[in-house]
């Protein structure tokens, strides 16, 4: 993500949230139909930061019809630090586990907001337990757009 937000880079192209002016060429979320999208999670820095020209990726996702989108205003999980023991990976594991089977795997699938809080708790505790005092404040920079009570389980 660009530090100013408003864009993501896929494997092959740059995608902006919206056109800076009518008729601008490029790849934009604006114009897409995302009404069948239940939840989008942008696990990336600045994915919920608003660029004055190109908008806000997570917010635009909801504008295009997704029920809920999560991004990070500022630092977020960085998957360039993607070694198996990284806190970023554990953040991701914790988030999706809580959404699927509940925090602590207790069988009660969490809302996206509770799942995000669970992920914060997991990476904070891991950091302290391993004496790696890189307190992962980035995990708390999340922003939710749309319905924060959404659950992805049961499937529909």
């Amino acid at each position, binding site marked *: 993500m660009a530090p100013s937000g408003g864009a993501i880079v896929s494997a092959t192209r740059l995608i902006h949230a919206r056109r800076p002016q009518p008729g601008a060429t490029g790849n934009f979320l604006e114009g897409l139909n995302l009404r069948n999208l239940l939840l989008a999670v942008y696990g990336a820095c600045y994915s919920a930061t608003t660029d004055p020209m190109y908008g806000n990726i997570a917010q635009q996702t909801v504008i295009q019809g997704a029920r809920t989108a999560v991004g990070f205003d500022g630092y977020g999980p960085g998957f360039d630090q993607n070694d198996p023991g990284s806190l970023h990976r554990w953040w991701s594991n914790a988030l999706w586990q809580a959404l699927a089977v509940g925090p602590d795997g207790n*069988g009660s699938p969490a809302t996206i907001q509770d799942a995000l809080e669970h992920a914060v708790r997991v990476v904070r505790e891991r950091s*302290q337990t391993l*004496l*790696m005092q890189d307190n992962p404040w980035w995990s708390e*920079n999340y922003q939710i757009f749309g319905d924060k*009570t959404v659950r992805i389980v049961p499937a529909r």
Partner: protein
Amino acid sequence: MNRRQVLTLAWHGAIAALLLSLAGARPPLAAQQAGAPQASLAAAVSEVLGEEFHWTEQRPGRRHDRAVVWLYGEDAEGTDVSAVVDLQTGLLVGFSRGWMGGLMRGKEPAITAEEALKRADGFLARVGVPIREGGWRLESSRFFDHGTAGRDYEFDWSKYFHGILLLADMWVRVNGDSGLVSYYHLWDEPVVVPLVVRVPATEAVRLVVRRSGMTAPVVERVVLGVGRRYVADDPLTGRVVGPQMLGWSVWLRDAAVPVPRDRPPLGLIGVVDARTGELVRIRSLPQPPSAAGERAGSRGARAKTAKRLVPAKFNLARLRNAKPPPTVFQLVQQRRSRR
């Protein structure tokens, strides 16, 4: 303290005692299946929290080595809430409440950081957390804005013993608009490792610097703490499985590497076993902990980010014979046995 405050505190103490006695009087809830909440437990949790909740579901779970029970339900406004109760002591160890007013919020939060801290303190008093005992220290207060998911003041307490950071953490978030507690978490593990330091801090720093490969290393922080030697991961909880250890955490940055314009300087952290001198872990850091905190602080400009991990002076001889403080759970049980 006026008469009303005394009466309020006494009332909170009585409610916490009620919850403890309920938890202690019943057979272990962990043996029960998930399902409808046990009426007495649900009522006691609502009493402790001082609100009417509609609890709809109960599930057994674990927090570290402790058995807990989860309650799920709604508050009076229909907002999702969950609570986590420690089975052995009946102490509330977790609470979460959603936020429905995100779209209607004003430009500024409705309450200040000072007011939020008072509410967080009041919440802990109601819950019955003995925060004045055991070495707890308010480590940081920060402000987070999660958009429509709410904006919160967060207060974070850590636990120290003669300057050693222990395996404990507690934080309370207070919603800046509703003034209600939106999140609470308590974690406190007993110290089972001998607090014997055979390797001085200078040696730990030297080891980490040697392995860092940095040309101009700058020591940013050194912390002595109780942690866990990594053996495996608990895939379900994300918890690190392994024996406790006493270790030095050494934080370095390279003065020879220019600081990127739009990012904080990179660094690395190394962990050295304080008894054996083994370098057990070294890792580059994507960002220092202050980075996001400063950013969060700048958004709200109400809460200041305290420097976490304050370097401490250690009296190693005194440490050798000192008894680590009891956990919150041990204190609660001691209190109960005195009654």
